[in-house]
């Protein structure tokens, strides 16, 4: 199929991009790595977009540690995230996530901001952001704002970003001493979106569990977290199973996904304790 774009403009700066979006009468569409958007356009699932290409805005790319905060620019590519030493030290969950995302060619172009803004319920980064308690930073015509991860992801492919806003970066607390971050997932083939995935974080204050591909958006499994804080893995699995209502599709049924979430939680807990599953 041939894509049918309404137009294309390359933004020189965030301000320029915001102006382009503002002038597009609602037809504007940010183009970052293009690894989800172009595929959708080629299937004519998205027609008539006025593409605002932000991929050359260098200020939106890069990784920085600011005190006890890790900041990752929205345009940082998956491959860069996977290879970055600071991320590996301070948010190893993201490093682990990258090896599950698509294939090398896609990781070389796809951006973390694109993945978060795209909000695919089966994607790794949104769930990681939720588990890490990250903040999304957006800039719009009326200035900048920070959005907590659990307020950012709303529905399938839907976030609380408004049409005239651009996601500029994501920040998260750097991992504390002894923090454990684990990602477990099952996909049909390597690089496929997860049938179910699970992030488990152990901090001094307690556990955090985010599950993906089990609903319209990544889910923070608070009851399972509480059970795990009590040290009761069986209860955590039971709670998790009640906390999710996974969809059925051609790859797997809801019941299978529910079962799998429990298996992944057990495996993650074993890894957390340094045991083999």
């Amino acid at each position, binding site marked *: *199929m041939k894509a049918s774009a309404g137009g294309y403009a390359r933004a020189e700066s965030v301000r320029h991009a915001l102006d382009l979006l503002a002038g597009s009468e609602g037809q504007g569409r940010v183009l970052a790595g293009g690894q989800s958007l172009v595929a959708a356009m080629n299937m*004519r699932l998205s027609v008539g977009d006025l593409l605002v290409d932000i991929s050359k805005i260098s200020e939106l790319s890069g990784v920085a540690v600011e005190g006890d905060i890790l900041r990752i620019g929205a345009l940082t590519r998956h491959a860069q995230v996977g290879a970055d030493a600071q991320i590996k030290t301070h948010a190893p969950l993201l490093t682990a996530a990258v090896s599950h995302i698509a294939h090398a060619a896609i990781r070389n172009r796809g951006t973390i901001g694109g993945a978060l803004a795209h909000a695919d319920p089966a994607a790794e980064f949104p769930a990681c952001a939720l588990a890490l308690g990250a903040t999304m930073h957006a800039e719009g015509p009326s200035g900048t704002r920070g959005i907590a991860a659990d307020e950012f992801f709303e529905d399938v492919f839907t976030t609380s970003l408004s049409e005239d806003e651009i996601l500029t970066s994501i920040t998260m607390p750097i991992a504390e001493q002894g923090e454990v971050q684990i990602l477990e997932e*099952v996909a049909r*083939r*390597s*690089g*496929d979106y997860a049938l179910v995935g699970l992030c488990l974080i152990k901090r001094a204050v307690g556990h955090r569990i985010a599950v993906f591909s089990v609903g319209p958006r990544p889910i923070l499994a608070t009851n399972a977290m509480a059970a795990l804080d009590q040290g009761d893995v069986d209860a955590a699995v039971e709670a998790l199973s009640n906390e999710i209502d996974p969809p059925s599709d*051609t790859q797997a049924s809801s019941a299978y996904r529910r079962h799998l979430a429990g298996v992944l939680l057990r495996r993650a807990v074993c890894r957390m304790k340094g045991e083999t599953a």
Partner: protein
Amino acid sequence: MTIPFNNPDRPNSYIGRTVPRPNATKLVQGRGRYVDDIVLPRMLHVAFSRSPVAHAKIGAIDLDEAKAVKGVVRIFTGADLAEVCTPWVAVLAHLKGLKSPPEHPLAVDRACWVGEPVVAVVANTRAAAEEAASLVVVDYEELPAVTDTMTALDKDTPVIHPELGDNLAFRRLHEEGDVDAAFKTAHKVVSAHFRTARHTGVTLEPRSILVDWNPAEGQMTAYHATQAPHMMQTVFAKHLDIPESRVRVICGDVGGSYGIKVHVYPDEVATAAIAKVMGRPVKFIADRLESFSTDIHARDHEIEAKIAVDVDGKILAIDVDDWTGIGPYSVYPRTSAIEGNQVVNLCGGPYDFANYRAQTTVVFQNKTPTCQYRAVGHPIAVAITEGLVDMAAAAIGMDPVEIRRRNMYADDAYPVTSPAKMKFEGLSHHASMDKLIEMIDYDALRADQAEARKQGKYRGIGIASFIELTNPSPFMYGIGGARISAQDGCTVRMDPDGSVVALSGVTEQGQGTEAMLSQVVAEGVGVKPSNVRVITGDTQVTPYGGGTWASRGAGIGGEAALQAARALRDSILEVAAAMLQAEAGKLDIRDGQIVDLESGEERMPLEELGRIVYFRGDTLPKDLPRELVQTRHFITMDYPFAFTNGVQASYLEVDTDTGVVTLLKHWCVEDCGRVINPQLVDEQIRGGIVQGLGGALYEEIHYDEDGQLLNGSMADYLVPMAAEMPDMVVAHVETPTKESELGAKGAGEAGTAGAPAAVMNAINDALRPLGAQVAAMPFTPERILRALGKIND
């Protein structure tokens, strides 16, 4: 003089060696020429508005908005094309009772599957044509859709084509011996319900055609990604009312076919019809969604089968009830009854047993039409047979290798006729099994499996013996009335510079046909393969032939090439003898030189002979024949098909918590007769295995109950990818066919035939201690966990 194939040190010993592929460099450098690379002056593009529903009456068609799109040149409806193109009916006389309604290039009154072409939009660019096609408004009055195969014949199921009376396209029952008696008295009877999923071929290059009609010459030229150019020549001529001699089909580089490109597709015929009406070149290149919804599908079978064995594991009887849904039309001209027919022909194939009953029931439904795809029917028949044999072995506590050894035809039993009435000239089941067992180190593998189990890992070994039908005679299609050639020809000529050109009726789809031809001709004449230029895929240029299907390229096309090459060698030597005043029988051609047969002493290079023949013919004796062009044809006569055989093994691990299967290793020993090019054959086997593994673990086209296609993209239809593929070890036993000097049988489909059964048996071997068993492909993680009873709905 016959070629001493068993002596690898013979002169010009290219047959049996891995020689470089003449077209590889070109393809790797991106210098191939596929249909989409061809741009003709005044060329237009066609895109299709396709039915979004599975079954509907076509009401008013509103083209106003579509016509207004910039670049649109003309729009055709079914009624428009029906005036210039006659419909086809895909039946064959030897498939008794097969029925199918007339099919048009564009649906006329009714649309019968999601994706059926309804309106054709012709424009200056594909983008404009697509844009306009999306604005075509068709009033679809929905009719009830038939989607379930097993209830298609029920009384309360609507009949898709009322004029045919019912939804039964074809049924064949074959019975041999006394099956019921055998089951009654058997020591053990095991039955199972098998399911193979709907697949499609997923060629890298989608279906592509560019048709040019030249009214001044009354000639149609179709640049077509096809396996069978001569067959298509006939089809275009017949349905577009052009003399056959005035249709030229050119098949350049093709990016994979797997059987997908050997059929007649309505949108491709529509493209040709439109080109003829408009007098302008028209191009159609399917996109990926069109590929999924309109390339033929295959393998959608449901089977109830049972096996009876005695105490010693001898097979007493096999009974198979096979059902398949083929979509709303049988596909032209090969028909959609062949796959079910093959299941009947092939079940029980490797085994010497007496009582056999098999029935196939082929029904219409409102889904994409199915037809022949790589290894037609084989993966189904092998899964049934090998699944049953393994289950029987388990039921009587016998090793799966042992039960096979007790039942396979003895290697010295041939010729033999199977209970399915297939004639086997010579197979090597036992030699192949022996080689496989040695290769996989069966005992060590069993020990590893036991060790793994102690650590809570469930590993399984699966064995699958198989037969494969290759080198078909006219018994496959010709006797049924189809103008599909089982014969193939090759013309070989020597040019003045001593180089050789070979023109062959078999075609190159990317599988290496041209490499095979170049080495056969090189050895046959006595030149280097690099000095042989191969030309295929042009009906105006090559000898008439069948093309690529049913693993016939090397066996049929290769033999024609060998005989033509040998004939050219004789002609050359006749001239050489006159020039050198020697006896032709005492000369030979080696590496492009005329030499003394005995001493090997060089007498004259071929280019000198070429110079004399072409430019100084006056110096040769007047009555000396100087025919440096020779053509030979080959057709098999003694057997309807040249069967090959082999055996595969799979070793894998099942994660019993997630249901995920990890393939650890795969082996195949197969016997395709003479191996002409070991690397090409091995890669054919590997590629075939990968396609088989796809069927076993990943590939499945999904429809909902209304006949909507649910997974029309590469993201949702999972093909096997490199990361999941195991190491594969391939070995050969060679039992050349005596029908030809070359002795080659086909090798292109064996991998696909056996791999799914090997994987199924390995999974069941792993699950057996847990009391679980799977028989519905693909073996998804979910299906495995369900078999283990681990999922609560």
